[in-house]
């Protein structure tokens, strides 16, 4: 009888143990993006503060840092200086774009006036672009290679080191388009 109980217990628990062991190294908060390694979805969005709309297509040949953010998001405030220093730090072949999601234009203007801005912030009122990029929350940052492929996706605030790391990867992805892992 004891042997039967042991056998039954093993039968039930072994698959569970195997499943847990297989998932041991994974971060449960990091839901991988199916977009990494694929062409970045196109978009044309109006710029906060007016002016001509910005099209992703027109950025071809340059590395694009696409940052989804909102004024009500504290980590976005934390990473803002890192991104704001970006254009000067990385030069003209890297384009920084902010996409504001689920926010009020007036709040965004005030935020940018107070915190400073060095690159265009785009308005995505209908959430179209955020959904096309599979955005769950803010901040999320996509790194698009000069060839227009999404090379990496960062969930959570960027540090100067992380930013440099991802930009390096996106730049060097120019030669070999597509095929990348996260």
């Amino acid at each position, binding site marked *: 009888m004891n042997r039967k109980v042991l056998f039954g217990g093993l039968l039930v628990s072994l698959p569970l143990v195997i499943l847990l062991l297989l998932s041991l190294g994974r971060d449960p908060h990091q839901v991988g993006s199916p977009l990494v390694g694929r062409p970045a979805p196109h978009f044309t969005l109006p710029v906060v503060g007016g002016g001509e709309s910005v099209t992703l297509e027109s950025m071809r040949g340059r590395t694009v840092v696409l940052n989804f953010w909102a004024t009500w998001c504290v980590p976005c405030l934390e990473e803002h200086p890192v991104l704001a220093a970006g254009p000067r730090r990385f030069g003209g072949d890297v384009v920084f774009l902010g996409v504001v999601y689920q926010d009020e234009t007036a709040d965004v203007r005030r935020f940018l006036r107070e915190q400073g801005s060095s690159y265009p912030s785009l308005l995505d009122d209908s959430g*179209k672009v955020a959904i096309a990029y*599979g955005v769950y929350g803010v901040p999320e940052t996509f790194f698009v290679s000069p060839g227009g492929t999404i090379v990496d996706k960062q969930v959570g605030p960027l540090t100067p080191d992380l930013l440099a790391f991802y930009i390096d990867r996106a730049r060097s992805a120019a030669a070999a388009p597509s095929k990348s892992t996260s």
Partner: protein
Amino acid sequence: MNSALARPALRSLLLALSAALAAPLTAQAPGDAPIDLAQVANLVGAPRGRELAGDALEAEAQRVSSVLRCPVCQGLSVADSPSTMATHMRQQVRELVAAGFSEDQVLSYFEASYGEFVRLQPPLRGINWLVWLAPVAGLALGLGIVVWVLRGATATGRTPGAAPAATASPAAPVSERDPLPEDPALAQAVLRVRAVAYGWPGGRRPEAR
């Protein structure tokens, strides 16, 4: 015409109307460019169904939204979630369905950006079979165990696989029908229990029947 309506009735009617119209109205709000259908078609192919409008559109949009998972609330469908993200996704579903995209195409479109996770029903492929088959397998296993235990109970004291107890017991010798433990003290206890429980004199089955 309006003056004929009592004011409270009018107000409640207006409230109900505005609630019913909220989603379609926001979908047409100024500045909200419609979804880029060409880009969607690029991902999932040309629309497979026909263009919809009116009630058919609402019903189909509702149906597709109810199998699409809201990414920010995870446990809820886009149709059930009150979040802004879900509202936006409902609008998109509506636009896509109106343009004639099939349920599978709409789901595939969202899957391209969010992964298979957005499908509330995991599609039948790869490891997902496990999700569909495991409950059936579990049920079969449970039934098997129940049958096994029940058979063990009817064939008391016999090894599994022996002839069923029902046909064997009347003809079997007395000692085999009501087996006793080998330990004499334990056997005495069992006899006492049988005497109390069944009213058998001395704990032994009365032969006459």
